[in-house]
């Protein structure tokens, strides 16, 4: 590596001091310079290191197949994508599924539905179901991350598709593996959760079906999604575990699920404004049967950035610890 002429000769020193980003950025740039992009290398890189935010969208696009590996065709494909996006959007507009006032995420949802051929008749539009909700929250998060609506739509669509295709089967097993890792890491907490019955009430859907969309602030979420997009859903488990661990003391202090709920309420004083609508219907659906879920949701919906950054960092460390660092040569 050191001999690599393209690499900074200070790289060793950087790493020693802890500025890993410099090297990583360089490596990523090198990777991105390849004409047919090596998607596998990119995903490995993404799994190993945090992506520099300036390349994040690009890398995501490549990883999600929105852009082909060939740089040359990027513009062409980009054009295609844009046209497709516009066509679909136009069609929706014509059919009056969307209009100017429709929130962007809703538009994305309709587009996605259209493309997946599940767009309901306009006459019998139903309130969004669970899956739509997941999509919406992911879309919301993505909207925050990506500025260009076209890119955003494509990223959302590809992300959701990829997530569902790739991890659709393993998601139901994630709570189990969370339990397992928790038992390894902090059995006391696990016991406490089990005893209080809070374990079953944890917001798994929020965590695992939405990949923490709406739970973590976007800056932290990006880093999680880096891993998810690069092909690992295990990271979700570790993030969830890290969340539990970081609120362990407060959770442990309470024996009742309601107590846990209270803690959560105290921790997060932010209830995002945009979520008010959803909260309202969430109240209808969950509040009665699963108050903990709701409140956990409320808690994790938006956590303070500094906390979540630390949480995510720790979670990634844990993930590396348990699942091993992907050793694809960079």
């Amino acid at each position, binding site marked *: 590596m050191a001999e690599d002429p393209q690499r900074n000769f200070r790289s060793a020193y950087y790493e020693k001091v802890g500025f890993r980003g410099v090297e990583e950025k360089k490596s990523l740039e090198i990777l991105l310079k390849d004409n047919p992009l090596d998607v596998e290398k990119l995903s490995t890189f993404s799994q190993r290191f945090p992506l520099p935010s300036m390349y994040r969208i690009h890398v995501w696009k490549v990883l999600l197949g929105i852009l082909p*590996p060939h740089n040359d*065709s990027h513009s062409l494909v980009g054009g295609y994508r844009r046209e497709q996006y516009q066509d679909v959007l136009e069609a929706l507009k014509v059919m009056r599924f969307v209009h100017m006032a429709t929130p962007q995420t809703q538009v994305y949802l309709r587009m996605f539905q259209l493309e997946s051929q599940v767009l309901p*008749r306009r006459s019998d539009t139903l309130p969004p179901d669970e899956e739509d909700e997941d999509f919406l929250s992911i879309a919301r998060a993505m909207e925050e991350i990506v500025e260009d609506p076209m890119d955003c739509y494509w990223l959302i669509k590809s992300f959701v598709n990829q997530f569902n295709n790739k991890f659709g089967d393993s998601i139901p097993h994630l709570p189990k593996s969370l339990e397992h890792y928790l038992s390894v890491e902090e059995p006391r907490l696990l016991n406490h959760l089990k005893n209080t019955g809070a374990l079953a009430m944890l917001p798994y859907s929020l965590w695992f079906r939405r990949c923490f969309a709406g739970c973590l602030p976007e800056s932290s979420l990006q880093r999680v999604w880096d891993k998810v997009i690069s092909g690992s859903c295990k990271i979700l488990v570790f993030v969830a575990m890290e969340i539990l661990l970081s609120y362990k003391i407060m959770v442990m202090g309470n024996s009742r699920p309601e107590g846990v709920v209270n803690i959560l309420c105290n921790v997060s004083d932010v209830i995002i404004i945009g979520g008010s609508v959803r909260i309202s219907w969430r109240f209808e659906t969950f509040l009665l049967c699963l108050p903990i879920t709701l409140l956990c949701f409320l808690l994790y919906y938006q956590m303070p950035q500094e906390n979540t950054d630390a949480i995510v960092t720790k979670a990634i460390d844990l993930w590396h610890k348990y699942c091993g660092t992907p050793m694809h040569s960079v």
Partner: protein
Amino acid sequence: MAREQPNVGDLLPLLESSDIHQLEEIKGLINEHLSTERGAMLLNGLVDYFLETNSAQAIHILSSVREPHDKHLLDKMNECMTKQACRLPTLTLLGHVVRKQPSWIHKIARYPLLLSLLKCLKTDLDVVVLITGVLVLITLLPMIPQAGKQHLYEFFDIFGRLASWNLKNPGHISEVYLIHLHASIYSLFHRLYGMYPCNFVSYLRSHYNMKENVDTFEEVVKPMLEHVRIHPELVTGTKDQELDPTRWKKFEIHDIVIECAKVSLDPKEASCEEGYAPMPGNFYPHLELRPQESVSSPYTDFHNSYGSSSSTPFSTPRQPLPPPLSLASLPGTQSLYRSPQTSRSPNSSCELDTTCGVKELWSPSSLCGMATPPSSSGMSPNPELSHSASHLPGHRVHSTSGGKGTPASSTPATSSPPHTLSDFPIIPLLSNTTSPPQKDDHPVEAAKPSLVKQEPIRDSEKGGEVINRDVGGGETISMTLSVFMKEQELQQRTEREETAISEELLKITKDKRDLAGVRGFDSPFYRTTETLTGTQEKPLPNLPLGGPMPPRDPHHAVSTSDNELENAQGGIGGGGDSSTGLALDQSWSIEPVCPFSPIQHPLHQSLSALEDEVAKFGGLFSPSHPMKKPSLPYEALFDLALPRAASLFVGRRTSEARGRAALEKLCQRQEGLEDREEEGKGIVSASPLEVLDHLVQQGSDTHDKVLKRLPLPSKSADWTHFGGSAPLDELHTLRSQLLLLHSQLLYERYKREQHAVRNRRLLRRVINATALEEQNNAMKDQLNLQSVDVVTLKESLQVEQQRCRQLWDDRETVVTRLHSQVRQLQQGRDDYYTKNQELQSQLNEYQKKMNDLEADLQRANNKVCHTGHLLNQMTIKLSTSESTQQQMSFLNKQLLLLGEAHKLDVLQQQHTGSDNTKEAQMVQVSWGKEVERLRQSLLQQGQKLEAAQQRVGELETHLTKKEHLIVEQKKFLEDVKGQAKGELQASESRYQAQRRVTQLLQTELLHLYSRLEMEGHTCPTTASAAGGSSTDPGPPIDSSIMEPDGSVTLGTNEWSDDRRPSQSPRGNGSTLLPGKPKANNSPKALPVNSASSTQDIPPPLLVEPSFSCPHAPLATPMPPDAAPLTVGSYPSANSFLGMRARELFRNKSESQCDEEPPPPHLAGLSQGLKTELCVEPLFPPLGNALTCPVPASILGAPLTVPAKEHLPETRQRAIKQESPRRKMGGARGGGAAAASAAQPRQQQQFRIMDYNETQQEHS
């Protein structure tokens, strides 16, 4: 029970029944009733009965009343106490009850009875009541020590009141009563002082500080104080302390009594714990002297031995007989038991001295004898004796005159004389009848002597026995004699006594008055002197009587009898004194060994004597019994309770009275008392105490009778003689005195019982102590034995230790030896080990060497092999060389031969010619030239080769380059492929999206149309109006929809007609068209579709190919055909809406056209295609490659076109003909066709609807 109630009440009078069995029955009945009945009825009845009749049985029953009835009893008594008349009997009853010490007696303090008793004592003026009450109180005090404390000052008040009576005499009672009263106060004083010293002293201090009481103090209280020593409590205790209930907890009743007695200096009142038994009456006087004459008396009293020793000296001066002094002084430190003897000795003759001396020898042992027997032995003799005594009343007079000891002691003394009395009639009879058996004689003749002497006989079966018997025989004789004498003297004596007594009385009273201030009349001194003088005065008559002085126990009785015997003997002739003395000596010395015999015998004998007496001589002598029985014991008892002088005085009085009565009413009594004899017989089975009480009562009754019958004058004469009060008063006085005596007797008896109880306890302690001592000794012995054992064990231990040590040493040596051996062995082993190691190393070396050698060997072998091999080769070579040598030789030979031949040739040649050389030269030159040429050509060839080789190299590099290039190209191609694939995918997705959009739009459109149609249905008029130019009026709706444009429809109809036969293939094609995309998925659908289409051909009247299709869609979707259908319906939409829809569609179709290119874009012809498609649908090569949507659009185009542009028919046809082909091509066109696979189903449905509509139209 209720029924029995009256019966029981009625039974009460029967208590006096003479029949013993009946009496028992009644008693049992009453007791049973009492035990079952809870009510107070019967008890009250009993009390009333007692108050009426003074029945002893009632007393007996009442005093043994059990717990639940105590309340009733006490209440009843309290009630009776309020009545003046009943007071005395009630008090008597209370006394009985109290003396019985029932378990509930402590409760009395809680009942009002005590209060009323105290009140009575404080207020009553009847002296008899008072005395009885005081006695009861005194008896009661120890029983309720704690409860008494609240009434303490009442007690004191009572004391103060009664004490002042002596001087003031507020009741104006006779002095006789005063004496009684004084005695009882004295007792009360002792009791109070003993129990509550501090309080009492403080009371005395406060009470007698008052002026008006000073006299009383001087007269009454001070003498009393002189008879007590300082109570220790006065020093250590306080007023509160002595009232503390805990103080009394550890005391039993008798303990309290003894405690009280301890502080007394009065020998009558005091108790000497060590000496145990109260002193005989005779001795007391000597003791009594001391307080008056010596200051140290308390001490002497304290120490009994001193007291005894010191008392005798004092007493002797008074006594006429010096020997007792010497005798008494001799024993010195011996116990008081001796002193009675000594004191008695003065009464008896000088011979007694010897007996006294003898007694001194045995008395300690007798003491032991007293102590050791069980309590019954200690107790029983006295009652027995007293009992017997009570039955023998003849002696009473003597006893009263002479015996003034304790009541208990006096009775045995009196018992013997009765025998003599009774015996003297018996003896003759007995001697006549049963003289031969000497043993019988003894009991009958002289109970006590025989008693004593039988023991010697039994215990010491020696010569003494014979002597005793001889003596016994002598006794009988002497006794009879003495009895006769007595008998004769009896009357004389009584008379004489009477006079003497009266005289003495006078003298005593005088003395008393003289000495009252100085000594107090209670000083026993006078009495003793009196008795002494009395005895001295009447030696003869008193000899038998005075002799039996009051001994307490059988020994004393024995002694008395002995005295009597001796007296008798002395009286007769005094023969065999020494023998008796010797015998007695022996007997007494042995006596302690079997202490029981004396007890048994007296009982037996007394009983037998009594029976005999009753049986035989009751008639004769009984009169005397009743008369003297009652009086005598009381007086004897009274003596103890009262001061000596008073008792003497009283005794005199009573005896006097009795004597009178006896003289006067002897006969009457004899008659009347036969009944009582019978009664006595009945009583025999009862307790002696009861008998005694009974006797007392009988005596009093008879006395009453007698007194009543007495003529007043005689009485008055008697009393006037003494200057006494009126006879009636006198009678009354006597009676009440009698009562008092009885009560005092009972009181004293009670005291005695307390002592007995104490005795028993002390005995128990002594026994325990000795047992413990024995145990101690045994344990000591054991200890010694064990210590010996220990010593031996220690020795053995030492021995064992030594042995052990030795063994240890041995072991040590052995161990060391073994150790050394071990060491040696270890050394050896080490040596061996080293050697072994050396050997091992050697072995290793050898092995190494061996290995080396083996290697060498191997090598050698190898070499050998090699050499062998070489050898073989060499041999082969050798053989070959040999063969070559042979060849060589052969060749050499040939060479030689050839050489020779050559030579020959050369010679020949030389011979042959020289021109050959020229030729040869020429040949040579030519050869050279040729060589040169060949060489050149060779060079040339080499150059060529080189060039060729270079060329080859070049080519090869070229080749590699080419290959490289190819690879790169391939890579690039791959790249491009990937890129294209990516792009393709993107476009694919875009296309998909486009399709979705289109589908959606179509569905939307259809939806809109359906809605429109629905509206059209509802308002056909408007539709027709909109249709405007529609020629066909028949089918209003459908036509308007289906055939908006007449020309077009016509045209189409024509086509359809023309192509009817060919419709089916087309239809098939049309069905296949949608089916084709499906075909990739489900090719089976194809035939079905075709079949259905063929079947359904006739119905579709519409010429439009689209209408042929609707049948198929039933099973399979036909997205491409949707276009024709829409086209078909398009014309109908001539209305405004239709126009709009068309426009829309057009836009869409255009966009569709725009979007069609994607499939061709692969070839980069998308743009071109679009135009081509628009312009010319025929595009065979491409069309094949095109997907089905293309024909669909093409199909759609012509339909739309006619409406707009009127495409040439030919072209349309061409298109239509092409379509089947296209299908084939489409089928071949694989992937592209697959893209159009999915078409929304809604369209089918719509088509079906259309179809239905057309059906309707047709029908």
